[in-house]
């Protein structure tokens, strides 16, 4: 009985890794499509978002089955419940990648455009997503904490891009549609950073059995 449960848990782990890899692919591809203004690459992103959605449903079904049939307790329960939450965040990352790809397919953005710091922001976000999934795969608490801390960097990029866009619009030397698209893209990247942070938090939860926030608020006596 237990050995079957262990097998199913291993399967869950594998499925989550696969889904994480798909997310990495999706965000990497959408960033590349954006950088090169490549509509064909942007189209490929949608294939990945479809796959990610399917994976999410598969993993959810697997988790439900495990919860019902095995009635897990303690760490097993934590692992399964955090898996359930993690897939939601991963699925959102896939969706956001799809959203960026959609903006690229509109054709307003081309390779020649000056995209401000958006490439750096994309790289920072990709790093966050990769690291959060790495933290999950290796059960690495330090890496998970590093991901959570790195969210500030991505937020910083977003604020800078926003300020730069406001200035450009104020000086009337920017195409309004393009500026809004760029802002949306920056926002999507920022959202993906948040989702990566969530994944890292769920990794911590599955190891520790409590949220880091709780710990922090306890320490400060709030």
């Amino acid at each position, binding site marked *: 009985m237990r050995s079957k449960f262990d097998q199913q848990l291993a399967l869950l782990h594998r499925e989550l890794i696969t889904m994480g*890899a798909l997310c990495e692919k999706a965000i990497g591809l959408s960033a590349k499509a954006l950088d090169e203004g490549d509509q064909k690459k942007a189209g490929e992103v949608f294939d990945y978002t479809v796959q990610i959605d399917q994976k999410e449903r598969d993993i959810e079904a697997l988790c439900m089955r495990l919860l019902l049939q095995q009635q897990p307790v303690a760490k097993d329960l934590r692992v399964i419940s955090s898996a359930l939450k993690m897939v939601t965040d991963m699925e959102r990352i896939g969706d956001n990648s799809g959203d960026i790809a959609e903006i690229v397919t509109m054709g307003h953005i081309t390779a020649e455009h000056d995209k401000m710091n958006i490439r750096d922001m994309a790289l920072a976000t990709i790093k966050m997503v990769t690291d959060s999934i790495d933290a999950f*795969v*290796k059960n690495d608490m330090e890496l998970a904490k590093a991901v959570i801390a790195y969210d500030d960097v991505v937020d910083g990029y977003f604020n800078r891009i926003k300020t730069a866009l406001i200035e450009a619009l104020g000086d009337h030397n920017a195409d309004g549609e393009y500026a809004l698209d760029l802002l949306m893209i920056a926002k999507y990247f920022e959202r993906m950073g948040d989702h990566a942070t969530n994944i890292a938090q769920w990794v911590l939860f599955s190891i520790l059995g409590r949220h880091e926030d709780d710990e922090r608020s306890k320490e400060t006596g709030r």
Partner: protein
Amino acid sequence: MTKRIFRSICLVAMGVFVASAALFLAVLYDYFGGVQRKQLQMQTKLAAQAVANEGISYFDGLDTAEYRITWIGADGEVLYDNRSDSGEMENHLEREEIREALAGDLGESSRYSVTLMERALYCAKELPDGSVIRLSVSQNTLLTLLWGMMQPICVIVVIAVVLSLALASRLSRRIVKPLNELDLETPLSNEGYDELSPLLHRIDSQQRQIRFQKEELEQKQKEFDAVTENMTEGIILLNTKGNVLGINRAAKQLFETDGSCIGQHLLSVNRSTQISDLLSSAETGLHDEKMIDLSDGRYQLILNPVKYGEILSGSVLLAINVTEKEKSEQMRREFTANVSHELKTPLQTIAGSAELLAAGIVKEEDREEFYNRIQGEARRMIRLVNDIIRLSRLDEGADSMKREKVDLFALAEDTLQFLSVEAENAHVVMTLDGEPAFMEGIPQLLQSIILNLCDNAIKYNRDQGSVSVMVKKGTDEVILSVSDTGIGIPEEHQNRIFERFYRVDKSRSKELGGTGLGLSIVKHAVRLHHGKIRLQSREHVGTAITVMFPVL
């Protein structure tokens, strides 16, 4: 085992005890029965005598607690009974013992007395007057006797049981003790039961066999590890689920992991789509290949299923670095494209000029120039084709060419002679220094090395420049150096000039009739002689190329 022995001993002891007690009681019962009968007979005879003598008055003073005495008349009527009222008793003539007594002898029977409601033993004797005196004794007395013996018997039973329990437990423990103390690590050192020795010998031989096989396995594992550890290709062994069973050093480096990944799923090591595709074909037991870009280049991943008969027992993943292979493939492709291009350019000039001439468009005074141009381009093509042929021969290797003892100095002298006209035209002074230096080599190739180097030195020289060739004999090498006072090679081009068709300044090279293959031929020829090339060059100052050949 102790329990079993204990139980058996207990059971046997108790069984024996119960059986002997029963037997003893049965014999005793029988004996007492006999004694009782004899006594009854004797008493009957005595009573008969007494009654015959004294009549009924005998009964008056009789104290008979033990016996029941009945006097029965000849007609069967009960005349007297000491236990019940004789008047109420029925006729006894039909009783077995009475009939027997009347027949003449002592009558005996053992039956259930209706009168006294108990089992009784009867004995009767006829008196001379035809009446019968009968004595009976209750058999209960016998049982009472036995019952009386029960108490001591019970005590004996309890003592026997307790004793047998104690003895059985001690005995069984004694029997099992040597078995418990068997030293199975060294089976032959045990003393004790002879019956065990075949078993112990068997254990010993099996232990030796196991030890031997274990050593053999360890040895094989070590050999396997040693072989795989030193392979440059990465090897990962997987079980059917895709968990890592073994990984060699190269693979660890490639996938940036350490020994901790053993036992984990391969996806935790690398989650790229190629790996997950490979794993899904591993599950179905299919051979598969994928290309993957890792940190230090492009790798070909080959997955081979491992099958025992029809059963899939895992798979082996090989990672082979194909960066170099792909690079050389690309170079070959470029070479083909370059060759076609280089051949096409002069052909076009020739074809164009010939067409114009044939159409008669060219003026009489210009014809000379057209002829010259056709001739020049044709010569260039021949040179190019010759160079290509030479290169392809070098590619094939020097097996077909004969090696002999060559004086490099003499060769250089010949070559300089050959180039003297060209040098004069270019206003370049050529000098040769050094000494005769013999080495093992292929003369045609050595000549083409010197020729190409000197030709370049002349072509890319300045007006009134100089080329100095030097041949020197070292301890175990022959050194050829060609230095010029020419235009030099810019640093960024220096590591590429030995590539085929690579030119620093394309327009200038064509003007001078270069094919772009000269230095490539030099490189190959030097390599075939196991030599080394050193290039020193400064732009606008000059170039010195030194070739060192081992003497062999």
